[in-house]
């Protein structure tokens, strides 16, 4: 096992660990937060970062056996998933939140009083 492989393994382990950490916090936020908006905030942000970090880790691990054409192709495909998720995930969250606000779901407050008036005059 060469020193390069060891370094690669360490980087992969760190990236995937952070990815799993963000997935876990996103799930906790989804389960524990009180209303739609804060839940979407938790899942939207954490899922995006989790997917990007995990996919980068897996893409680096695909180069583990050396830089052959097949390995680079697999790695590139995984990175495409990360890039498209990075573009699409936040936009999907934005669209969901936007339509939720337009259809009149009010943000949660502790004392139950609405902080904004709906429908707007």
């Amino acid at each position: 096992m060469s020193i390069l492989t060891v370094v690669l393994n360490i980087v992969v382990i760190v990236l995937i660990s952070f990815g799993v950490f963000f997935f876990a916090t996103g799930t906790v936020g989804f389960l524990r937060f009180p209303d739609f908006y804060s839940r979407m905030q938790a899942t939207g942000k954490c899922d995006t970062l989790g997917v990007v970090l995990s996919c980068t880790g897996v893409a680096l691990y695909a180069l583990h056996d050396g830089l052959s054409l097949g390995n680079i192709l697999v790695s590139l495909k995984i990175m495409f998933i990360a890039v498209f998720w990075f573009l699409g995930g936040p936009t999907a969250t934005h669209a969901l939140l936007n339509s939720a606000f337009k259809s009149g779901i009010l943000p949660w407050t502790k004392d139950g009083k609405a902080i904004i008036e709906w429908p707007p005059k």
Partner: protein
Amino acid sequence: MITPLENIIIKTLCRLLIPFIQLFGLYVIVHGHGSPGGGFQGGCILAASFVLVVVAFDLPEAKRRFSEKLNNIFCSLGVFIYAWTGWMCLLLGANFLDYGILNKILPVNPVMARYYGMFSIEVGVGITVMAIMVSLFLDLVTGGKHEEALDE
């Protein structure tokens, strides 16, 4: 009737992503006989890109790009390709969809004739699935009355 969503973020991103989605759909169709995927899955991805156009822009814009008439032609075109690939084999003296015999009219050996036969089947299935999915989506979204919903 879908109400158009005036949102610059979603519109810009859809304009950016839809070509890549369609490219991926074509990739899934043409790699269907070598890797996971195939005509049905690729056709569904192509149809999803069209659904994204309808969701991000609006129905008249989507119909301007890909009209109902063209869609109906594509519905039949895929079945036509599929059926005639099968019938060519039958006419050349083998069973229905027994592609090996196609080497009589294609300048290749029987193995590659099988390859191209499968490929044309996948293309036919992909075109039909895309057109039927788009047709179903338009039926659902307009309540079954296409042109009337446009005129409103």
